[in-house]
């Protein structure tokens, strides 16, 4: 299936700074596609290249099968929601939203209908005649979205749209964005550095780091099967164990020597062979804590001592120390009432166990 929006080997430098390094990806029609990465990773530059505000040094951009690499921003069927909203300060809410259709020469009666429709989609019907400096941040954000969507773009670009809002409003706007997306069905590209936003909103995420895309996948794929150490550590919490492959059991499993901790059977998704150096990533919630050695022979386990406990209501976070001195971060969900059962406490000797399938092995990375 041809992709709806596609970047092909797009490259961009600012002086000596190689911001985007031959990036290619495709976005499917109607999905919310997130570009997620720390600041300076090139995600905003990719967005600006997509919108036509920056020219790529090389590479091509396709929208709906057409090459738009050399099309000016005002001729692309793409609209942008800018990070700081960029509303026109001298116009009312109505005039802001009406700017696109009026520019396109739509007659005034129809413009009125279109703006009313957008205002009802963003649920701000009462604000049409207000000046933009008299409304709140969340309202400005929704007006910026309406101002872009009224043009019926094939693709909507959102540049950190929630970054300027406080936490509560951000969570509310996240739901609003999802609802608006369901209502209009436009394809969204969403740029953010906040993994929480990306995880809860996106159909697929591209995780970026220093100018390259490290991994593209659904939020669950990214979280459960990170391809690189960067992705594993950037998305969620994890524990890293350096090790090497001691033996290969069969096609699916191998035994990995966790230096100093012992040898453990592990799922071998990369067809590793004996002697390969790996980093093993195990998420905190994949561990289980037992007060005595568990009977289940399928589990990997080692003995440790509890050094810190943080009760968080739905879950408890433990820091335990293994015999060779490493600290491991463990999260347990409270499926039953926390107070009804005996819980591990400070300095307790415990057994930490995990299933061989619940690890991610990351082969030595090829430098890029």
């Amino acid at each position: 299936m041809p992709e709806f929006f596609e970047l092909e080997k797009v490259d961009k430098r600012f002086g000596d700074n190689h911001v985007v390094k031959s990036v290619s990806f495709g976005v499917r029609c109607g999905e919310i596609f997130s570009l997620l990465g720390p600041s300076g990773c090139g995600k905003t530059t990719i967005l600006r290249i997509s919108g036509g505000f920056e020219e790529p040094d090389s590479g091509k951009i396709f929208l709906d099968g057409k090459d738009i690499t050399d099309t000016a921003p005002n001729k692309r069927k793409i609209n942008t929601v800018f990070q700081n909203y960029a509303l026109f300060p001298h116009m009312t809410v109505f005039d802001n939203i009406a700017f696109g259709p009026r520019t396109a020469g739509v007659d005034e009666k129809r413009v009125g209908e279109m703006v009313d429709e957008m205002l009802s989609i963003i649920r701000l019907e009462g604000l049409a005649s207000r000046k933009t400096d008299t409304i709140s941040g969340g309202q400005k954000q929704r007006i910026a979205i309406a101002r872009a969507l009224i043009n019926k773009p094939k693709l909507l670009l959102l540049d950190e749209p929630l970054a300027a809002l406080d936490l509560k409003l951000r969570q509310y706007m996240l739901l609003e964005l999802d609802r608006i997306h369901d209502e209009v069905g436009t394809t969204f590209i969403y740029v953010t550095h906040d993994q929480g936003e990306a995880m809860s909103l996106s159909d697929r995420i591209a995780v970026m780091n220093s100018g390259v895309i490290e991994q593209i996948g659904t939020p669950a794929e990214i979280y459960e099967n990170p391809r690189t150490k960067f992705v594993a550590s950037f998305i969620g919490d994890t524990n890293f164990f350096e090790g090497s492959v001691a033996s290969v059991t069969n096609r699916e499993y191998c035994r990995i020597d966790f230096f100093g901790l012992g040898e453990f059977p592990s799922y071998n998704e990369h067809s590793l062979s004996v002697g390969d150096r790996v980093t093993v990533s195990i998420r905190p919630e994949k561990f289980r804590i037992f007060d005595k050695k568990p009977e289940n022979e399928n589990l990997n386990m080692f003995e440790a001592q509890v050094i810190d406990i943080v009760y968080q209501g739905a879950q408890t976070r433990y820091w335990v120390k293994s015999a060779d001195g490493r600290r491991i971060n463990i999260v347990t969900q409270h499926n039953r009432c926390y107070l009804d059962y005996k819980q591990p406490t400070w300095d307790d000797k415990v057994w930490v166990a995990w299933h061989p399938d619940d690890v991610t092995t990351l082969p030595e990375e090829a430098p890029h």
Partner: protein
Amino acid sequence: MKSRYTSLFVTIFVMVFMYLPIVMLVSQSFNESRYGGKWMGFSLKWYEALFRDSAVINATVNTLVVAFAATVISTAVGTCAAWTLNKYRLSRLQSAHYVLVYAPMCVPDVLMGISLLLMFVSMRVDLGIATVILAHATFCLSFVTFTVLARLQDFDFNIIQAAQDLGAGNFRIFVKIVLPLLGPGIAAGAMMAFTLSMDDFVVTFFVGGPGSTTLPVKVYSMMKHGPPAIINALSVVFMALTFTVAIAGQFLTRKKF
């Protein structure tokens, strides 16, 4: 409470200090008496005499022509200067540009007048209305530039990209976005230029020639010859004009979008 009285006292003192002479002038202009001082009754005769004096009318026309032309020139050039200063503010060339535009505001008028006169003479340009206009445009330029620059520094250039994103071409962006937002700043700069040009005496005195007498120069010469009461009336008319423009300029700069 004490500080409130202090500030009230200071305010009153400053107002009296600045405006008492002007109040005197205005009241004297309505005085029947020829030499002022003693109040001889209310009269408009000095204003009548003023409007019959063709030399005064001439000087007024000259003043307005010079002010208008100098304003147009300095506003156009000054706005361009402000735009470049803002756009390339990090370049070394523009730092030099900044200082060079800033400097004339500190240079004494006498120096400016002499240097302009020297230049015109050495270039064999006949002194007259044209030289006065050029000279005025020169010193107004700095003020226009800095007024517009202040406005530009608050201007969010993202909204130009937003307009582009919404399909607007350069002309539409200029008419619908740039002009409404920068217009007041440019107009305020223009008002400033207009008032500065209108009441300039020193520079005009140096670079003026036959037929280019402006109001300030006329007032100066009337101090020597004409009846002082007419000067009072003239000054009041002149002041009213300047105040109107200055207040309009203030209003435009303060207006917030």
